[in-house]
């Protein structure tokens, strides 16, 4: 398991990008349209700073929209796992519960993503290398 990024909910991706730029961040990816999660997203990296994924809901819809009704900002932590089996064992041991089923990761070819809930009510993204097991 390895840290990958912090997800940052944004009402306007370009506005949030300006803030990251002022903090010394640079874009690591182009803006990606993820129709499964109904978001536009972009990864940003900074020197000695954690990778940040900016996410903006498309047309104000999808699972990110209700989160943004509370507030913008950091709302999930993403870690990458070598296999689904490893991810399941670790999340079960950590008392995480699935919020979604594993789905193809639009931003990461050959990977899946699954959202889990922590016992404290926060959100965790599981990225698994290797795709969905049959």
């Amino acid at each position: 398991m390895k840290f990958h990024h912090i997800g940052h909910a944004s009402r306007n991706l370009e506005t949030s990008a300006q803030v990251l730029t002022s903090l010394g961040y640079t874009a690591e990816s182009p803006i990606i349209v993820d129709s499964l999660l109904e978001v536009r997203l972009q990864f940003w990296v900074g020197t000695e700073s954690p990778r940040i994924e900016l996410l903006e809901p498309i047309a104000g819809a999808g699972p990110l929209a209700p989160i943004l009704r509370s507030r913008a900002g950091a709302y999930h932590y993403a870690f990458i796992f070598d296999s689904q089996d490893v991810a399941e064992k670790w999340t079960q041991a950590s008392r995480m519960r699935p919020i979604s089923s594993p789905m193809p990761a639009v931003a990461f070819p050959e990977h899946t993503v699954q959202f889990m809930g922590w016992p404290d009510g926060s959100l965790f993204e599981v990225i698994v290398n290797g795709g969905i097991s049959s």
Partner: protein
Amino acid sequence: MSSCEDRLRAVFVVIFQVEAEKVHHMTMDSYPEWDSLRHIELVSEIEDRFGIELSNREVASLQSFTALRNRVCGESSQ
């Protein structure tokens, strides 16, 4: 000594910051603040306080105070 239902109601009061009198009719559908993440926070707190373990399938299906009360306290608590 408080009843099982009273103890469960107290968990709802802490998690949702609601008055105890309003808990009885709460469901995920009728209470917008009861979203999927808050649901996991709720069932985790219930597991801790009652010393029980709920399966993912149960967590997905127990979406009202009444359903959780029946599972945690037993059907006889109705």
